């Protein structure tokens, strides 16, 4: 009797390499565990297509209540938006500058010492771990109620985000040019500034502009603690059931997001 392999004609093929490398038993076990946990999580996440479908009419009704956007309070909204954007711009800019230096230390290849590498990674992760709410409370309690506390929160927030993404971008860069500068005898700083930064630039621009945008959006939290900005306006509109005004605010955030994104695309194309 012929084996299945022979019947299907596979024996005609020469010594082909394996299609996939089989994972080791240990890894296989880990994969298996991971999948089990995911399935277990699925059950805990309450996904339900039915609920979603049944919810559509209600959602439609709410969206209906939001239209048409109400522009009568556009003046105070614009002012709040401007203030928010100012805080975001300044906070994010300062955060981005700090992030850049931290990121150099937090990227494995560029860090002068493993101890520095781990400690900066820790600092950045810590900035990310403490929620906005807590930072805001800390800063309001220390520097007082107002924009400055908001700006500080944004700085920390930006460090948590950009610090990580800048470091990753630097690690993803093609190593060829770096090696070339190494053989020239350049210092690590020279290499970072001359080879890593130009290559990671589009990514830096992207993360940076995202950070500004993010800062604008996170002003909802800042609003909660009295740091001003568009967040509190939105909260008032929602709490007072002025859905049409809320729609205006959402729209203005949307416009800002789109504008920042377009700006990002323009700048990046200059660095590509």
């Amino acid at each position, binding site marked *: 009797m012929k084996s299945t392999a022979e019947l299907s004609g596979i024996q005609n093929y020469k010594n082909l390499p394996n299609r996939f490398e089989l994972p080791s038993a240990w890894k296989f076990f880990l994969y298996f565990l991971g999948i089990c946990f995911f399935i277990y999580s699925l059950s805990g996440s309450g996904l339900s297509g039915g609920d979603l479908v049944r919810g559509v009419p209600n959602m439609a009704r709410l969206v209906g209540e939001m239209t048409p956007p109400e522009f009568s309070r556009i003046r105070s909204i614009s002012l709040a938006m401007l203030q928010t954007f100012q805080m975001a711009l300044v906070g994010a800019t300062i955060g981005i500058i700090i992030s850049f230096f931290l990121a150099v230390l937090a990227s494995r290849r560029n860090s002068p010492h493993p101890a520095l590498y781990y400690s900066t990674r820790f600092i950045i992760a810590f900035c990310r771990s403490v929620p906005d709410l807590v930072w805001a409370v800390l800063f309001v309690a220390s520097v007082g109620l107002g924009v400055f506390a908001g700006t500080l929160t944004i700085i920390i927030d930006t460090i948590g985000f950009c610090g990580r993404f800048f470091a990753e971008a630097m690690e993803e860069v093609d190593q060829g040019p770096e090696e*070339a500068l190494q053989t020239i005898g350049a210092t690590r700083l020279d290499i970072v500034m001359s080879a890593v930064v*130009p290559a990671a630039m589009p990514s830096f621009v992207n993360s940076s502009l995202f950070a500004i945008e993010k800062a604008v959006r996170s002003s909802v939290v800042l609003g909660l603690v009295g740091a001003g900005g568009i967040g509190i306006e939105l909260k008032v509109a929602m709490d007072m059931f002025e859905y049409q005004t809320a729609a205006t605010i959402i729209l203005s955030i949307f416009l800002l997001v789109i504008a920042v994104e377009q700006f990002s695309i323009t700048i990046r194309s200059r660095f590509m």
Partner: protein
Amino acid sequence: MLLQSETTYIDSDMISGEEIHLAVSSLAKSFDGRGVILDDVSFSIKKGDAVALIGGNGSGKSTLLRCCLRLVEPDRGEISLLGMPVTSLRRSPLRALRSRVGLIFQRHNLVPRLTVLSNVIHGSMNSGWGFRRWRQGFAPAEIREQAIGCLEKVGLPHLANSRADQLSGGESQRVAIARALMQKPDFIMADEPVASLDPKVGREVMDLFVNLIKTENITFLFVSHDLEHALTYSNRLMAMKDGVLHLNGETKDYQTADLHEIYG
């Protein structure tokens, strides 16, 4: 004119110094899943030598060069470069040593997005001027002047302001050469430096190197697949085969036919 394999350009007897510039002994390197790439390689190169390194594709020539500068960490063996023990150097003396060696990469390894001039100016980073070498815009006029000079040697001064990633193959190779010249190195290692160059420029560039040997007394080690070049522009010749050094001797002792065996 093309075929000068009978008469070598440089003669070992011309070499004055007896100083050893590169001594490699029992060098070995293997990569995960690829087995042995360099197998017990030993040789030495005197100051002022022009050494051609030939060998089949994948025989380990580039890896050998990279090991000599510790861009790849060798598994075993001793390397002494310009009198320094490469394998045991710490960060800072290693940097100082590397700065004296100009390595021209097979893939050129220019920094994309920067201009050609900035790339060439990078070659002078070994003189430690910090941020003034990061971009051409910051560099002092004499450095920019020198860089233009190096570009002139490879015939590309008109491209100084072009972006390095928009060059043709040969142009980018020439920029890499200009960058190495900018280093004012004591030792030039060149990995197939004229592979993408047209025949005329290729000869000019090789002449340039040979001239540097004569005038500046540098040492020159180059990889080439062009046997005529190998025979013409060297006084010493080494041949690799499957990670082993097969030939190692005076260029004048070899004929084209001998060399073809290496690729067997």
